[in-house]
C-alpha cells in the first residue's frame, strides 16, 4: 500500500516543486544581496574626472558597495590639491562654449595650439559647471568619502611618477596592485573602465 502513497510524489510533481522553491530561494537571495560596482579611473583631466565620481556617489546613494581603483593619471584625482584641466587636444567633439552659452567658431584642433588656451578653457568649463549647478570634483569626492566609497590607489603609479604619499588625501583605503584589485572586481556586478 505504501507504494501507492508514494506515487503522489511523481517525478513531475517533484520537478515542479523544486523549480518553484528554487525560484523563490533565488529571488530571496537576490533581494538580500547588496549590489556592487568597481571602477578603474585612468584619466586625470577635468572632464574625465566626472564619470567615476558621479557614478560612484550615485551608486552608493542607491545602496551599492563601490570601489574605485585610481591608476596612472587617474591617481592625480586623489591628490590633496586638485587643479584639474580640460584640454581641447585630442578632444575633437569638445564644444567651446563661453559661460554665457555662446559657442566659439574655432575648431578645437586649432585652439589647442594657442598658448594659454588650456587654462582659459579650464576656467570657462569650471565656471559653466558652477552656473549649471553641477558639483565640483572636490565636492563629489567628498560625497564619495562620506558615503564610504572605497578609494584604492595604484602603488605602481606612485613609484612610477615618484609621487610622495603625503601629496594624497588620507582617506585612501589602500595602496595596492592589480592582483589585489582584480578579486574585488571579480565579485562586482558592474565593472567600468574610465
Amino acid at each position: 500500500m505504501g507504494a501507492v502513497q508514494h506515487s503522489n510524489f511523481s517525478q513531475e510533481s517533484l520537478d515542479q516543486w523544486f523549480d518553484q522553491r528554487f525560484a523563490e530561494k533565488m529571488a530571496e537571495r537576490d533581494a538580500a544581496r547588496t549590489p556592487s560596482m568597481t571602477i578603474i579611473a585612468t584619466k586625470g583631466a577635468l572632464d574625465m574626472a566626472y564619470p567615476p565620481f558621479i557614478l560612484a556617489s550615485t551608486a552608493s546613494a542607491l545602496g551599492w558597495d563601490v570601489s574605485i581603483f585610481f591608476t596612472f593619471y587617474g591617481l592625480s584625482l586623489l591628490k590633496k590639491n586638485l587643479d584639474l584641466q580640460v584640454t581641447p587636444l585630442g578632444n575633437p567633439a569638445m564644444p567651446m562654449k563661453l559661460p554665457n552659452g555662446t559657442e566659439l567658431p574655432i575648431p578645437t584642433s586649432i585652439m589647442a595650439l594657442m598658448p594659454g588656451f588650456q587654462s582659459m578653457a579650464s576656467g570657462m568649463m569650471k565656471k559653466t559647471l558652477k552656473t549649471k549647478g553641477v558639483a565640483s570634483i572636490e565636492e563629489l569626492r567628498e560625497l564619495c568619502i562620506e558615503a564610504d566609497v572605497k578609494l584604492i590607489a595604484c602603488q605602481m603609479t606612485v613609484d612610477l611618477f615618484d609621487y610622495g604619499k603625503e601629496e594624497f588625501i588620507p582617506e585612501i583605503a589602500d595602496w595596492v596592485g592589480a592582483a589585489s584589485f582584480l578579486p574585488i572586481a571579480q565579485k562586482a556586478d558592474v565593472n567600468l573602465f574610465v
Partner: protein
Amino acid sequence: MNTPAAQTLDARGLNCPLPILRTKKAIASLSVGEVLEVTATDPGSLKDMESFCAQTGNELLASGQSGGDFFFRIRKS
C-alpha cells in the same frame, strides 16, 4: 491620506547627481514611515527619483511638475 512632510528638501538649481545624493542624505535622517518632500529643477530628477526609490525600497508617494519645478513626496520604508 496625506501625511504631512517630516522634512522638506530644496534641491532647486542643483544638477545630477546632487538632487539624488541630497535626497539620500535627507532620508537617512528620517524615521521609517516619515515623509520627505523634495523640490528640484533638474529635469532628469523625474526619472532618477523613480529609479532611486525602486532601488532603495522607499516609496514614491507622488511626483509632479509645476512650471520648471519638480516635486516629489517620498515615504521612508
